[in-house]
């Protein structure tokens, strides 16, 4: 950890720290007054622990008292690694996930995936660990921290005039909730009707993911999760844009879905965000669909010149042991690392004034340029 990162924000200072190793995303928010919120979780390569946990411990935050809520926007493994240990450490935090995860078909898929180890369960196994944590607390007669949210829910509100705060979820809409239910039932049936045991089929939970609007004092932040756009007006970003507008536009944006064009709509930038606001993203360095592409970066830079990424979107070929290295090169088969070296973007601004955000990059993080 770099020395500069050990300083805590002032009580009247907002901080957004975005962690992204190239595959994975976690956001740590200082809400003012020593109160913290964590959105999603990824792993810190050096310690193998949740990146948010490592950072908060390094800057001396009392995890048990000061972390108020943990939000799990959706269960994809790049957003949930280390979530169970984070919840275990932040014993007084409320845990909030999408209301679509209450569906019995989804919970059956989670239960079935627990019997499959290794490469297979991934995010679902981690979500199962979170639920088991909560069950343990229930057995110990502790109050359950588990809550769900949907479009229009208020997750946290503080009407204190000196540090006013409101965190609201803008999704999932009723349409997306219904679509997720249908998807869960279909995938569960697919899993059960397969002749052989297989890993859980790919589900696309992005439409069920939680987009957050965070209002702290004079600042407004939009956290886009992995939300994508849909052609219909009742789902995805279309549903969010058709909601009643907030009193003011956001002046900081965590770009949705790793900067993809499916996570973008012009209306986000024109109706929800102030012009040229700072925008940050985590890449998704995967073989199948690496994000952001060059065209995505060009598009983002047309929207705002102040765009940053936690890591470059480039795949790294893994050098293997012999004879695998020689043999696979001969066959022209490349094994790529799913990246894990951390990049960290830290943005701070005063709660009380409309100052410019001060953004620092650490590790592999950098500012996007044409």
């Amino acid at each position, binding site marked *: 950890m770099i020395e500069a990162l050990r300083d805590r924000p002032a009580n009247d200072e907002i901080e957004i720290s975005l962690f992204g190793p190239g595959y994975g995303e976690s956001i740590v928010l200082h809400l003012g007054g020593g109160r913290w919120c964590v959105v999603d979780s990824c792993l810190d390569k050096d310690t193998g622990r949740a990146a948010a946990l490592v950072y908060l411990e390094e800057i001396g935050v009392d995890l048990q008292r000061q972390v108020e809520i943990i939000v799990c926007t959706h269960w994809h493994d790049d957003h949930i690694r280390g979530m169970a240990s984070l919840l275990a450490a932040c014993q007084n935090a409320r845990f909030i996930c999408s209301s679509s995860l209450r569906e019995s078909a989804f919970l059956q898929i989670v239960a079935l995936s627990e*019997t499959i*180890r*290794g490469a297979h369960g991934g995010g679902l196994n981690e979500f199962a660990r979170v639920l088991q944590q909560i069950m343990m607390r229930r057995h110990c007669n502790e109050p359950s921290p588990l809550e769900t949210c949907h479009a229009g829910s208020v997750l946290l509100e503080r009407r204190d005039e000196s540090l006013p705060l409101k965190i609201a979820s803008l999704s999932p809409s009723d349409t997306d909730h219904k679509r997720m239910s249908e998807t869960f039932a279909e995938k569960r049936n697919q899993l059960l009707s397969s002749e052989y*045991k297989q890993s859980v089929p790919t589900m696309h939970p992005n439409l069920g993911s939680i987009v957050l609007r965070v209002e702290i004092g004079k600042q407004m932040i939009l956290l886009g999760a992995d939300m994508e756009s849909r052609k219909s007006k009742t789902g995805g970003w279309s549903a969010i844009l058709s909601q009643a507008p907030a009193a003011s536009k956001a002046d900081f944006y965590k770009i949705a879905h790793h900067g993809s064009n499916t996570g973008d709509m012009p209306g986000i930038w024109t109706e929800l965000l102030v012009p040229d606001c700072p925008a940050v993203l985590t890449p998704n360095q995967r073989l199948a669909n690496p994000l952001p592409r060059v065209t995505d970066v060009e598009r983002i830079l047309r929207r705002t010149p102040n765009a940053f990424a936690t890591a470059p979107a480039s795949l790294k070929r893994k050098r293997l042991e012999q004879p695998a290295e020689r043999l696979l090169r001969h066959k022209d088969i490349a094994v790529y690392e799913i990246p894990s070296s951390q990049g960290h973007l830290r943005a701070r601004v005063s709660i009380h004034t409309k100052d410019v955000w001060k953004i620092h990059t650490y590790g592999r993080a950098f500012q996007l340029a044409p």
Partner: protein
Amino acid sequence: MAGPLITPDLSRCEIGPEITVECQTNRLTLNAVTTLGEERLRSLAAAILVKLPHTPITAVGINHLHVFDARNEDEWHRVGDLLVPKDEIWSKAMIGRPGMALLRVEDFRPGPPPVRVWATIEPVRESHPPYRIAIHTNWHTDIPQNSSDNINPAEIATEFVATQWELSLDFARNLAKTLFGKVRATPASA
């Protein structure tokens, strides 16, 4: 083996270069010659068990045999000295230079499913070098018969093979890692 052997009491055959199947009246044994056959062995075991739901199976076990080369004769002896210290008992009770021939340790894990675990460690008595240590592990469960839950023993056995395979391998590797880690952390004898 030149070809299949089929008698009323014993049948044995090879499937490809990796898998051998041996079937006695009361025991079915499937072996893989190397780890290349591991996946196929597992799939075959599960498939056979599923196809024979009425077989009165009383127990099912997964065995792994790992053979390691110690770096030298001293390290080879240190394995035995660590597991069966000679100073207090054996060198006093026995004449000459007693050595560990075979050590067996067992454990019970309540589960579910309940699993009995055995680990056997023995030095390999071939010409030296190399100096070899064999770790044989057995991970098995007894299957209740005539249960009031109307449980199909073959179904339980199939589930066991499907869900316990990695755990049985993890156990074997962890044991090897712990043993050799300790051996190497122990100073060499004078």
